[in-house]
């Protein structure tokens, strides 16, 4: 095996360019003669558009055109599609309202695009945009989920009665109801999983160029999945054949789910580039990112647990109202269903589980995937409920978890998934050790003597990653599945290019995917380049999200590597005058088994391309492609343990310790895995303590800048303590599970459990996220009142 193979903490191949300013992000790209686009956005949440006066803007120096929704409507483009169909309880389909890239008749949230100004410079476009006068007939806005759910509420879409997009269920309702009827105890909890705004540090951008000679378009865009954008933009919206539309997602500065969807701006610049015959570039300002990137989460949930006298879980019941915002974004409907309801069992052997979800339209920015996407919502409510149950039954929160863990695999849950492997006791034990749980009470007493409140909380969570196996999601009604492609091109001198449909926007695939190829081919990772993010280079791809890159994309690469090795054996057999069945490939050489006759990988590669002495029945070349459709989800799991110290005078929460023991399957690069865990933890702690996207009742975004939306900063966070106890995934060739979302799924309930533990002496039963000093202080005050 090469020293740059699987398991090596190899330094990243991509770092030199990022560290020296040579990264190439979308906004770094300029094309000759390009125009700058500035999007005019609605400043009201809900209105009919009576008319748009563009004359003053058009008269401004440098302005070339101002295009409206009416102009676009005349092109007859399709609607921005939603990728995931949800079937209602009664068998009917979800309500699927149209989403025009530029609103023509009505606006439905603050930030909805109503026109685009195209000018010679960015400043000219921006200045002229202020002169575009939209005449609105305002309609009653629904800024919050509560408003949209109120009886007799106005409608965001007339076709969606009660503002309900779908009413979906999972699990066996009758069996679950019976479990509750037979239960000794029923514990229930109402939780709010707040709206979050993703905030990748690179704002979205798009640059399109149309070549009138060939009829070809090129779109550079800040996407996690360029091939998917080509499919949706080309086939569903504009009607451009794939071979005439190249979509490039170059270096992308973080995604976190917000760069999955197909966005209006991608259509706008592509359309305008042909219409005006010049390249068109748009780059979001941060205030636009707040208004018009997809947001995440925003659930109101009632959850109940049925238990016997010993604390054994008998049944779980969930009802969730999930906010979808004003339009259905690409993955929006999958998040509170396939990625949420399927996780209701958690790591517990609860025999009966049932849940239903009503998805609700509001006059707010569309909601879609955000780091974890559905799974943080599930883990939060389950882990909060389990802690609450322990407290109410007088049990230790650790022991009630142990009592109910799944220990035999494979395990079929009552909510569609089959867990293949795991060891929840091991990660629980490890996390408690790392967190010095056994001496916690001493620290609590010491803090108490100083007038401070210490609390300890754990979360024993499980997630489903590597989205998404066709068979499983197809059985739930999805109309798409999510495989991945991989291609291995061996060059004549033995160097290798790996083409993948996955996309790296911080994850380090250029390093880890090279390590996989290094491991299989026995050559150094320096000899291997990974190409991603360009529809003209990789044959197809579903992109990167749902912790799928190594589990699905990596598996496709392994299948292609195996094809290369099999073909190499045939070439080597010919060169060595042996049977291919007798040739083995080890340590970078093809050897006739039991002999010292061998050919190096490089010699076989050269023979493949310089075929003067070559098998007659074999094609020249050494270039293989494979597609991989996962058989199942992967199931990373673990325990996160958090210790907090609260100042009861101010409500300030100090994170004393964050200790995590995770099972993420086989590790390709431990340095990168740790980095992914750190990032997810920061995102999860941000949700638990700081971040809150808020609209007022008029649908105005109150948290539209970094002055109003609390991002985790360096001085908000501690060092993290990490441990690993990995069990290999049983159904993919690498044994990998995925790691990018672990922190954001695992840690929020551990933080809140620790805070509630600290406040338990006041009788505080629950506190919603984010647990800001004000909320904690009020909880203490209310409990004392």
């Amino acid at each position, binding site marked *: 095996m090469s020293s740059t193979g699987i398991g090596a903490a190899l*330094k*990243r191949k*991509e*770092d*030199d*360019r*990022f*560290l*020296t*300013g*040579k*990264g*190439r*992000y979308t*906004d*770094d790209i300029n094309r000759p003669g390009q125009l700058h686009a500035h999007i005019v956005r609605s400043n009201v949440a809900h209105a009919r558009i009576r008319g748009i006066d563009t004359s003053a803007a058009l008269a401004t120096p440098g302005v070339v055109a101002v295009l409206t929704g009416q102009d676009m409507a005349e092109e007859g483009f399709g609607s921005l599609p939603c990728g995931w169909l949800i079937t209602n309880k009664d068998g009917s389909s979800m309500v699927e309202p149209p989403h025009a890239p530029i609103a023509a008749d009505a606006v439905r949230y603050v930030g909805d695009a109503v026109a685009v100004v195209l000018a010679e410079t960015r*400043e000219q476009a921006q200045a002229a945009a202020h002169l575009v006068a939209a005449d609105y007939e305002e309609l009653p806005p629904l800024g919050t989920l509560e408003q949209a759910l109120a009886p007799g509420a106005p409608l965001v879409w007339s076709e969606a009665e009660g503002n309900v997009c779908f009413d979906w269920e999972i699990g066996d309702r009758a069996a679950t109801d019976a479990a509750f009827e037979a239960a000794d105890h029923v514990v229930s909890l109402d939780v709010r999983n707040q709206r979050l705004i993703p*905030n*990748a*540090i*690179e*704002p979205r951008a798009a640059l399109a160029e149309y070549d009138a000679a060939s009829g070809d378009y090129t779109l550079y865009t800040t996407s996690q999945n360029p091939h998917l954008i080509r499919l949706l933009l080309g086939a569903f919206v504009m009607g451009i054949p794939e071979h005439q539309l190249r979509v490039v997602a170059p*270096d*992308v*500065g*973080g995604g*976190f789910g917000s760069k999955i969807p197909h966005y209006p701006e991608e259509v706008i610049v592509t359309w305008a580039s042909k219409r005006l015959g010049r390249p068109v570039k748009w*780059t979001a*300002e*941060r*205030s636009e990112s707040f208004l018009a990137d997809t947001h995440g989460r925003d659930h109101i949930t009632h959850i109940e647990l049925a238990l016997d006298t010993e604390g054994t879980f008998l049944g779980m019941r969930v009802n969730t109202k999930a906010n979808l915002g004003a339009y259905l974004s690409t993955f929006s409907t999958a998040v509170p269903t396939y990625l949420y309801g399927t996780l209701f069992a958690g790591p517990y052997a609860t025999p009966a589980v049932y849940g239903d979800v009503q998805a609700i339209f509001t006059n707010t920015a569309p909601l879609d995937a955000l780091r974890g996407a559905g799974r943080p919502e599930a883990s939060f409510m389950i882990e909060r409920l389990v802690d609450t149950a322990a407290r109410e039954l007088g049990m230790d929160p650790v022991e009630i978890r142990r009592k109910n863990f799944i220990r035999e695999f494979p395990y079929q849950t009552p909510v569609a998934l089959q867990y293949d492997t795991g060891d929840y006791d091991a990660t629980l034990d490890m996390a408690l050790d790392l967190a010095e749980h056994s001496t916690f009470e001493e620290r609590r007493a010491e803090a108490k003597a100083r007038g401070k409140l210490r609390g300890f909380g754990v979360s024993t969570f499980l997630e489903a990653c590597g989205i998404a196996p066709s068979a499983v999601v197809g059985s739930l009604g999805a109309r798409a599945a999510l495989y991945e492609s991989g291609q291995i091109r061996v060059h004549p001198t033995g160097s290798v290019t790996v083409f993948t449909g996955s996309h790296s*926007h*911080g*994850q*380090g695939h250029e390093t880890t995917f090279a390590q996989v190829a290094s491991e299989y081919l026995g050559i150094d990772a320096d000899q291997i380049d990974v190409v991603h993010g360009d529809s003209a280079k990789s044959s197809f791809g579903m992109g990167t999200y749902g912790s799928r890159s190594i589990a699905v994309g990596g598996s496709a690469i392994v299948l292609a590597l195996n094809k290369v090795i099999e073909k190499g054996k045939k070439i080597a057999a010919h060169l060595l005058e042996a049977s291919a069945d007798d040739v083995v490939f080890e340590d970078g050489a093809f050897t006739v088994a039991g002999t010292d006759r061998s050919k190096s990988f490089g010699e076989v590669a050269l023979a493949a391309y310089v075929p003067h002495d070559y098998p007659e029945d074999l094609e020249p070349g050494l270039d293989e492609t494979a597609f991989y459709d996962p058989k199942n989800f992967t199931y990373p799991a673990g325990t996160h343990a958090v210790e907090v110290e609260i100042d009861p005078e101010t409500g300030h929460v100090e994170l004393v310790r964050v200790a995590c023991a995770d099972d993420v399957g086989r590790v390709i690069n431990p*340095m*990168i895995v*740790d*980095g992914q865990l*750190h*990032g*997810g*933890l*920061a*995102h999860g702690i941000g949700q638990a303590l700081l971040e809150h996207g808020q609209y007022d009742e008029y649908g105005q975004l109150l948290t539209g*800048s*970094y*002055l109003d939306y609390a*991002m*985790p*900063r*360096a*001085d908000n*966070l501690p*060092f*993290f303590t990490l441990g690993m106890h990995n069990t290999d995934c049983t159904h993919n060739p690498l044994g990998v599970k995925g790691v990018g979302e672990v*922190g954001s799924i695992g840690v929020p309930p551990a933080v809140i459990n620790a805070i509630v533990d600290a406040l338990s002496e006041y009788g505080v039963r629950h506190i919603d996220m984010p647990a800001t000093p004000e909320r904690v202080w009020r909880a203490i005050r209310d409990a004392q009142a």
Partner: protein
Amino acid sequence: MPVISMTVNGTERSAEVEGRTLLVHYLRDALGLTGTHVGCDTSQCGACVVHVDGRSVKSCTMLAAEAEDAQVTTIEGVATNGELHPMQAAFKEHHGLQCGFCTPGVVLGAIDLANRNTDPSEQEVREWLEGNLCRCTGYHNIVKAVQAGANAMGG
């Protein structure tokens, strides 16, 4: 439009730009130095940090005209003769970057800290970097990298 001149990464540069042009746009658009990034419009995120006369500055928060005749260093000017600066090398060694977008600003901010203090504590690093947002790393490895890079700069 005024012609604005300054020394950027050791080279005299000048360009004719609108008077309202921010330093970050002067660097990116007029000089083509796209290593300096724009992450927000409220001088909060720190992706645009450069050095002006040796001190770290958010280049979105000053006009190019204010840097007239100044010595400006951007991320493109940090490595010398193809060798990473010790702070850049520490970021690579400690995996202090993921997507790379905030990285130029963080590295330039960190070099300014190390120029003042080659042995900063964890808390000093965290407080110094409070004005640099990173969404990828959770700051854990950034803090480690800055401490190691500062130590290396101190020799």
